[in-house]
């Protein structure tokens, strides 16, 4: 068996004195499609940023191909791992094609301009994400769904082994959510790109991800196939709501929240 792409060993992380992630053990193998789920503030974004090397992990807690991630140069890491934000606004009017070309940065040497090959890779990335039509328009002018696709195109142009995506579907309507998840599925199948994404929609997560990590309050409380992770007991505990699960005949698990009974002693009446 080959060595894992990323390994977290007893990872603890926090801002100042507030712990965000506690005691995380995790192995990510090449080719996986992993969904990070959990309530707001459970540490999904922070874990993604640590795995992508955007936040500095404590020593000996995250290993990239068995090397402490702190010892890997930023450029080398960027050649293997791409990260996309949930939202991005630009202070300046970069064109979408320019944003996508920025993905080539870790592959270019000092002072080098993008080559014909780089332009071709960027164009291909825009084809895959259906963003070619507005490649000459300013990034700031397009809609949220289009922006997300351009950001993903930029990550694809980076030609990474793994993409870490922070809630790429959260702000989008169902059509764009499907479109983006299908693009990621396609990358995972055709290019063997490892996908790790944070998301809120449990139904879609169960449909597309082969493995789910359920985070609660900075800890991984469940790790496994969607069927194993999405169970009423644990979901009720983590999200603090009542749920009923239905099997979706088209794949995945439908998580249906049950409204709590009308508050007994409030002054609504």
């Amino acid at each position, binding site marked *: 068996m080959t060595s894992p792409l990323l390994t977290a060993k007893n990872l603890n992380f926090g801002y100042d004195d507030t712990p965000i992630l506690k005691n995380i053990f995790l192995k990510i193998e090449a080719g996986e499609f992993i969904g990070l789920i959990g309530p707001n503030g459970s540490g999904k974004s922070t874990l993604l*940023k640590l795995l*992508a*090397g*955007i*936040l*500095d992990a404590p020593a000996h807690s995250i290993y990239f191909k068995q090397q402490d991630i702190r010892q890997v140069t*930023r*450029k*080398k*890491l*960027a*050649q293997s*791992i*791409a*990260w*996309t*934000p949930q939202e*991005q606004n*630009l*202070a*300046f*009017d*970069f*064109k979408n094609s*320019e*944003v996508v070309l*920025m*993905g080539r*940065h*870790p592959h*270019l040497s*000092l*002072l080098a*301009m*993008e080559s014909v090959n780089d332009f071709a890779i960027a164009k291909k990335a825009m084809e895959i994400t259906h963003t070619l039509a507005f490649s000459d328009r300013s990034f700031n002018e397009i809609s949220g769904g289009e922006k997300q696709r351009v*950001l993903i195109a*930029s990550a694809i142009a*980076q030609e990474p082994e793994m993409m870490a995506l922070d809630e790429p579907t959260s702000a989008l309507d169902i059509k764009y959510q499907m479109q983006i998840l299908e693009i990621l599925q396609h990358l995972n199948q055709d290019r063997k790109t490892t996908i790790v994404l944070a998301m809120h929609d449990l139904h879609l997560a169960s449909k597309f991800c082969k493995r789910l990590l359920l985070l609660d309050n900075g800890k991984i409380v469940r790790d496994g196939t969607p069927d194993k992770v999405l169970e009423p007991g644990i979901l009720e505990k983590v999200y603090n709501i009542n749920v009923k699960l239905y099997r979706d005949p088209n794949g995945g698990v439908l998580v249906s929240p049950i409204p709590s009974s009308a508050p007994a002693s409030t002054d609504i009446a």
Partner: protein
Amino acid sequence: MTKKHYITTLGIFLIFLLATLAIAPLIGATDINLRNAFSSEIPFKENIDAHILFLARLPRILLAGIAGSALAIAGAVFQALLRNDLAAPFTLGVSSGAAFGAVLSIAMGWTFRIMGIPALSLFAFMGALLAVALVFSLVKVRHNEFQTSTLLLAGVTANFFFAALVMFIHYLSDFTQSFQIIRWLMGGLDITDYATVLSIIPPVAFGFFVLMLIARDLNLISAGVSTALSRGVNVSRIQKTGFIVSSLITGTVVAFTGPIGFVGLIAPHIVRLIVGPDLRLLLPCVMMFGAAFLILCDAVARTLIAPAEIPVGVITAILGGPFFVWLLKRKKNA
């Protein structure tokens, strides 16, 4: 951006700069006869036209060009680093620090020179660096990036602090010193020679070279710090390099010319509207445009109420003020 587009754009800006350089020496309070100026028959000592052209106008035009390009480059870099198109070289307290140094040396009556550089310029430069050092000591690097809001706040604080010191010294000084202080604070290019021009070329050229080396990294930072990190940019190192180098070239120029405002704000904006935000193209274009802009402003300053001269800082500010307001309004409507 294709190579052809890149070279064509640079060529257009170069033609603009060369045209400005050719026309500016002919503009001034006195008309000069070019044939006489270049004549080898008239001895240089007696050649008034040559004196005006080579000793009065040319060094001044060169200083304006270098100062304009340095301030414009620094402005473009600060705007990229702070991801804020209202940032300018003076946002970080560089100018008020320089003003403090200059005013201190005027009030103390220091007139010595070290290696040909007058005390006034030396102290202005040290003041600029002092301000930058102060601002940086206030800013913590956290999670691989500067807190840009803290940086701006620290810059504004340094500005107020040094402005208060300047006012204090100004208040205590006598009439002659007071006039000198006011004159310096307005910014000007009038007291210059080739030695001054030669002494500021190396630091500015070095700064431009370094900034061009990190231009692509700066592009990514201007688009967003986290995405820049994920594309392999060593953000804290590039931020530090960018800030220090830009402050250095600003300080170098301001030490000799006084604080000439608005060049660093206007030039990057106009050029960005024309060539876009990619700093690999923007920086060389803004360098040429900044030079041409200040040379033209200075030509106006020399001729508007000739034979008297208006400080060039007044001209750039009169042009810059309304532009700034327009920019703010446009931003608000967007």
